């Protein structure tokens, strides 16, 4: 008989950050490393209804939530996204995680206007997966490299200081030829576009979703949590809302075991299980999905 694995809990501290899975699992790309397998035809999690999002934002305000992150899928696929963003920024700082493909000149102008009119910061995080075109496009799709960089430049030219978000997928595929300092490569790349103040965030790869689950999965143990500051794990301070309810972690959205509420944020403010291999990634790398 197999021994039962003891699953440690992380103590809930305070709800600081609310993530919104605004476009569900719908995306205009099909990246080969996506941890929730988002795609143009993935309807596992549908678009969130605007009224539902506004309801969560109101509750977040009452609870004293500090900031809001919009993710997906691709947030700009949501028909009301810019209106929701504008409404959000009246009350909260906000961040968008986007692949950038839908940020044309008109949307870039609107984002600049919305950002300027808010007292709070708007962070726009645009994803790229390699500083070489062919390597990026093999992950994100043909032609994406140029479109992403064009979107980044549009935002930069409007003074929005976008963040380039990069996964360590190169290191995952080719650990022997990964650069010593990836930051320098991206600084150089953005510099070639005339971006003089690049903001870059490098994120570890999560072996789940579109990537194979490791042969020998590693889990967080109760011993590892002894003396560990729980507030270093985001599930002590963050929740993500999706169409079907509230999850403990933005990485584990659409994972049944991470679903901890179905209607109000208040009911989800509980200790939660560190049951997934992704929890080990957070624990060991100090990963934060947040911008800073």
């Amino acid at each position, binding site marked *: 008989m197999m021994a039962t694995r003891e699953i440690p809990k992380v103590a809930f501290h305070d709800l600081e950050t609310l993530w919104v899975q605004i476009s569900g699992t719908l995306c205009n790309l099909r990246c080969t490393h996506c941890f929730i397998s988002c795609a143009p035809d993935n309807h596992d999690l549908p678009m969130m209804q605007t009224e539902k999002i506004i309801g969560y934002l109101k509750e977040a*305000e009452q609870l004293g*939530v500090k900031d809001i992150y919009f993710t997906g899928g691709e947030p700009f696929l949501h028909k009301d996204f810019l209106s929701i963003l504008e409404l959000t920024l009246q009350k909260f700082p906000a961040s968008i995680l986007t692949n950038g493909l839908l940020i044309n000149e008109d949307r870039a102008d609107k984002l600049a206007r919305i950002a300027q009119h808010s007292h709070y910061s708007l*962070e726009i995080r645009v994803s790229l997966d390699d500083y070489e075109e062919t390597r990026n496009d093999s992950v994100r799709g043909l032609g994406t490299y140029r479109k992403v960089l064009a979107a980044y430049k549009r935002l930069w030219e409007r003074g929005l200081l976008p963040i380039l978000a990069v996964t360590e997928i190169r290191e995952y595929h080719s650990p022997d030829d990964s650069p010593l300092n990836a930051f320098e490569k991206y600084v150089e790349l953005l510099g070639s576009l005339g971006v003089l103040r690049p903001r870059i965030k490098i994120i570890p790869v999560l072996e789940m979703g579109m990537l194979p689950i490791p042969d020998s999965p590693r889990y967080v143990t109760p011993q590892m949590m002894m003396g560990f500051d729980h507030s270093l794990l985001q599930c002590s301070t963050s929740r993500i809302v999706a169409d079907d309810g509230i999850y403990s972690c933005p990485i584990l959205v659409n994972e049944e075991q991470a679903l901890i509420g179905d209607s109000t944020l208040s009911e989800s403010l509980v200790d939660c299980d560190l049951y997934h291999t992704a929890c080990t990634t957070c624990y060991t790398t100090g990963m934060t999905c947040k911008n*800073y």
Partner: protein
Amino acid sequence: MVKHSQSNETREQGKWGDAPTYNRVILFGGVYSNYISLEYLLKECQKMDAEAIFCLGDIGGFGPHPNRSYEHLQDTKVTTLAGNYDLSLSQGLDDCGCGYTDPRDNHFAQISYDYTFQNTSQPNKDWLITLPRLIRFRLADLKVLLCHGSPRRTNEFLWDSSSPDHLLHRFLEDSGADVLCFTHTGLKWYRRLTGNRHTVNVGVIGRPENDGTPNVWFTLLEAREQDLKCFFLPLDYNHSRLIDEMKKEHLPSEFIETIQTGWWTTCTEIMPFKERLRGRF
């Protein structure tokens, strides 16, 4: 991996009974081992007729000879609370617990912390461990709570553009205070909230404000009955002398550039968009 907790317990509303009362106080944060600006500030304070002076933590880091800053504070009537740096040093931890998430920010933070740890005497580390995490007093009829980062976490960054009104209201509600003062980010700001509530980031005297001028900033608070006035005051000091000493101690040229030019060159990734936009890098 063992990490200490930066969490505070603030939901204690019954602590105002013995709190002292003032009408005019001086507050500053982030000395960052800039004992020269601290000397200038303490001289300035003598002229200002303040009833009390408060340091909101992070005494070491960035600058040279940390013991000189601790000893200045111990020799004067400054009431000091613990910042994340002070907690880390006093507990012998491996890093400053600043709360940075970017490896480039952490690279420079570690250089600074290692230097400060090696150059802080044991008696001063023992003194740091005695510092409180929160301080309460009354300013005329207003109840004031002091902390380093936020009331709930010593290393929380409360930037102007990342701190929504409803969160600040909740901090005040939970603690029973009318005025909340903090530091940690390095940038001063003041916001008056509804219901005669106030929040003040008191700034730092250890490094300039990322505005292209080498002076640093401190805060004067005055109150009469329920009426609060908040003044941010610039402090010029002999920053050339500090630069000479930083060079002799082989501190990074990036730190020296900040002292000289007033622009932040390190630990910039932690800044939100609006604050970052105002700087040079």
